């Protein structure tokens, strides 16, 4: 338990230290306001429009990530108790892996992994 407390304290400390450093830099830096400085970066021309849409591919990738990350999460406890679970555990995990792999083949055939 104490290790986790220690890790938590250290992580909060890192965040605080770097926020303080950023605050210090903001205090030290010069401030010269200019309306052109607060425009978005656009290679020298005036910005035309804002961007707020994204390609649906990224959404599909995020869903696929959820699927396979849960697969990985299920396999970590199995890998830890590999000896205790024995052959039955291996067979069960192989069935699970096989089902997920079928899902991968389905996604492949449906074209979810294609980038045009």
């Amino acid at each position, binding site marked *: 338990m104490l290790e986790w407390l220690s890790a938590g304290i250290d992580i909060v400390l890192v*965040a605080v230290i770097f926020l303080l450093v*950023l605050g210090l830099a903001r205090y030290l830096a010069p401030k010269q306001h200019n309306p052109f400085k607060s*425009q978005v970066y656009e290679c020298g021309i005036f910005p035309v429009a804002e961007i707020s849409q994204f390609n649906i591919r990224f959404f599909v990738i995020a869903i696929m990530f959820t699927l396979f990350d849960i697969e990985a999460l299920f396999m970590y406890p199995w890998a830890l108790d590999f000896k205790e679970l024995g052959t039955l555990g*291996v067979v069960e995990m192989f069935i699970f892996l096989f089902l997920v792999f079928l899902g991968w083949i389905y996604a492949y055939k449906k074209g979810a992994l294609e980038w045009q």
Partner: protein
Amino acid sequence: MSIVIWGLIKFIVVLLLISLYVLFMTWFDRKVLARMQNRVGPKLIGFHGLWQPLADGVKSIWKEDVMPGKAYKFMFWLAPVITITTAFAISFVIPFAPPVKTASGVVFHFSVVNLNVAILFVFAFLGLSSYGVLYAGISSGGSKYPFLGAQREGAQMISYEIVLALSLLNPILMSQSLNFETIVAAQTHHLWYAFYQPVAFVTYLIAMFAVAGKVPFDMPEAESEICCGYFVEYSGLKMGLYPFAQYVVVLVLSAIMVLMFLGGWNGPFWDGGFVAGFIWYWIKVAFFIFLFTWIWGTLPRYRYDQLMDIGWKILLPITVLNIFWTGFALTIGLPFF
């Protein structure tokens, strides 16, 4: 309570050492890249330009903090801090030297915290680090390049995290532990796991470059396509924190590579306790850190669709099939397992 106090002391030491390492690495990267391209590199400030990173750091502190007018201020400030915090959080569970048994019989660990699920901790914070990137892109106030770059980087990181997690599963299957020191101990007086798991070794090596966002997979910051990617709108020290975090991630991923696949502090010969272990360990880690720079100076960049194809169509089925093979081999007890 002593664990917390020791943790704080080790935390300060690790923070200072990693900051020094990052300063030195920026110089090293520029120098090595310059030599590969037949240039000289930084030369003027100090011995062969050794003080150059310090000068750059001081300069970036005094830079004006420019922010797009429509930026979401809170998220814009938070994004670099999330990135750097997650990068440092991963480094807390990495052992920096072999454990030492003190005279009273207590084992002293050279990681800030010695967790029994260190690898899960690493993946938790690698997953969180994509938030820093996505926040940077979304909070930049409708700027195009950060938005595109953040999507690309986010999708790339989560795609290759699966490959990373599934390739690390093979050494975990063989050692049945999630603690780095136990996994290294399982490789002592034994062949290293890279020899049992050459496929997992190679897939981890490729995924390592993609997760760190380094050449040949430095898609998010493809200079010729989307300028600097997700941190175009950042300036000064806030911008500097992104490469900072990237160097920390490079160190951590190289250390995990050595701990999981290359026997950590075990050497092929000269097993002389702490000093020998320390030297072997850091020789191997330094090689992989150098490999990042070497590949940077050697290979061109992949296209984005090629990157996704490599991850989802080639590496993912290979790692899954490799787990089938490892489970099979361990169950029937092949002679080399």
